[in-house]
């Protein structure tokens, strides 16, 4: 386990390092004075001078990169061009909105998708199975931003049931929750389909195993067999899917935040791109990718912990 952990962790750190390198070299690729480019055309000469000194722009490029990477590793992501606040602080203020959206979206998708997949697997080739199949392909095929737009049209514009814009009054939990419903619906919808299909496929495979037949011979109830034994094994590929699909989840959350004007990490990066506020873009992108890599790593380790065969194969 320790060897697997070290190897997997080392690989993730290497990828993060590569991401930092890519982000750093993207800024080097554009022509012009690096300080003006990094701070944008609206920066004051004093800010440019301060930035040039802080980033050691007179040093060779590789040294600049090491300084940038070193700062990023210690949690210093630079300063916002306009407000001159620490980028790390700004991101920490916003990331809660994104995490809340992702957890709620994933939560309802799992609560619906996993039982649906089980049901379809237990009753294969019945109408339950067929409807689940059509439903899952349908929800997977509709892009999440289109779900967002149509949900706004139906529930906010026509029916006026739910608010479309913002994250709700700070401190007012009920208001914040009602603001969370539509974005979470849009982000989670396609996951109902993914999860139902995945669980159905692996469940069908597991239900054919001999130990399930033994359990049946022992006289266990169907419910006990499905939820007590089969689902435990069938859930493994689903965990991998959630880990691998987390990037798509982040993409969907970014779209939802922009469309619903929800002040999360995605909206922050989008607004900073529009304002050409490069330090915030850089920091935000780095945090988003690190978050993704962290989740992939976590799901891999979780699987290795549950399933010893995976541990030994790498």
């Amino acid at each position, binding site marked *: 386990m320790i060897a697997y952990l070290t190897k997997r962790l080392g*690989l993730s750190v*290497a*990828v*993060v390092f*590569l*991401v930092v390198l*890519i*982000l750093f070299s*993207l*800024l080097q*690729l*554009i022509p012009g004075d690096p300080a003006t480019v990094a701070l944008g055309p609206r920066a004051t000469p004093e800010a440019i001078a301060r930035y040039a000194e802080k980033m050691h722009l007179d040093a060779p490029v590789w040294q600049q990169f090491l300084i940038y990477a070193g700062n990023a590793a210690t949690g210093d992501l630079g300063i916002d061009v306009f407000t001159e606040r620490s980028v790390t602080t700004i991101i920490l203020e916003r990331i809660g909105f994104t995490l809340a959206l992702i957890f709620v979206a994933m939560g309802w998708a799992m609560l619906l998708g996993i039982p649906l997949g089980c049901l379809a697997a237990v009753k294969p080739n019945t109408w339950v199975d067929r409807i689940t199949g059509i439903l899952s*392909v*349908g929800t*997977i*095929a*509709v*892009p999440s*931003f*289109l779900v967002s*737009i*149509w949900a*706004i*049209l139906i529930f906010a*514009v*026509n029916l006026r049931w739910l608010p479309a814009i913002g994250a709700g009054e700070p401190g007012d939990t009920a208001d914040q929750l009602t603001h969370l419903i539509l974005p979470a619906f849009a982000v989670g919808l396609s996951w109902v389909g993914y999860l139902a*299909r*995945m669980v159905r*496929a692996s469940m069908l*495979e597991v239900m054919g195993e001999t130990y399930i037949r033994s359990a049946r011979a022992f006289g266990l109830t169907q419910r006990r067999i499905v939820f007590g034994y089969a689902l435990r094994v069938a859930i493994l*590929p689903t965990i991998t*899917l959630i880990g691998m699909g987390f*990037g*798509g989840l*982040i*993409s969907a959350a*970014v*779209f939802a935040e*922009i469309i619903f004007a929800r002040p999360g990490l*995605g909206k922050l*990066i*989008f607004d*900073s*791109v529009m304002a*050409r506020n*490069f330090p915030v*873009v*850089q920091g935000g*992108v780095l945090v*988003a*990718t690190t978050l*993704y*890599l962290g989740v992939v790593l976590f799901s891999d380790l979780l699987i290795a912990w549950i399933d010893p065969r995976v541990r030994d194969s790498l």
Partner: protein
Amino acid sequence: MSVIPSDPVIVTVPDIRESAARERREKLSAFLRNWQGVLGLVLVMMFFISAIFAPWLAPYEPNTMDIPSRLSPPVLDHIAGTDQLGRDTFSRLLYGGRVALKIAAIGVSVSLAIGLLLGMIAGLGPRWLDNLLLLLFDAVRAFPTIILALATVALTGPSMEMVLAIVIITSIPQYARVTRTATMSLRNTEFIQAERSLGASTIRILWHHILPNVIGPLLILAAMDVPVVVSVEAGLSFLGLGVLPPTASWGTILNEGYLVIRNAPWMVVAAGIPLILTTLGFTFLGEALRDIFDPRMGKGR
């Protein structure tokens, strides 16, 4: 008299041909019995035909303004209504299909070609090169598509070329991974070893043995990749990060419709329909082909 048994040779050759033909017929009928696959094929054909023949099918020029009849609801003259400048939404959607087709065709074929090449290099090359390429693929995959697009737009500004670049870069790793796995499993098989001992070059082995074995799964993967590519284009253009107005693309039409969602709700409805039909069509077709030609592939997803 010759002792060469001529009869069996004459009998077996047509027999093999016939069994191959029978297998082909069986696969075709299996496909025709799969209603999702047939529906997918119809939708995909509709997408190609409407995009290619858009100039002949469209009742209006996509950018001709007609201010007096602006924001018209769907009527006989404008079956999908008009936008804020009085342009016919149906005609614009047809032309938008051309943008989607162009990005899908170029994006998928270029990323498939590069992915194929990199996958073969990773599968046949030395261990360190394989590890380096895998690390690179992981690094690219670490950027959620929209985040990578945002980072790129911050530097280059939005354009169709930028969308293409994003689509190609994010699609390469999946093709490369499939090719790499297939190459690795083939390279130690006996027939490749035999070919190599006869002095065949690496190029010949790749071209004659590995390519035919890997191209099927790659094409199925490509069919499944089209919906992703088309939605990425529409999504980025919707946010103003991709194709720019006044060019008609499904994303820019959605964007213009979203601005008038209260006064002209039919616009975002109409703009979403071709997008859904296209993604559904390619998904159905890809899955039907996968189930028929490569049943094992379905297990992993």
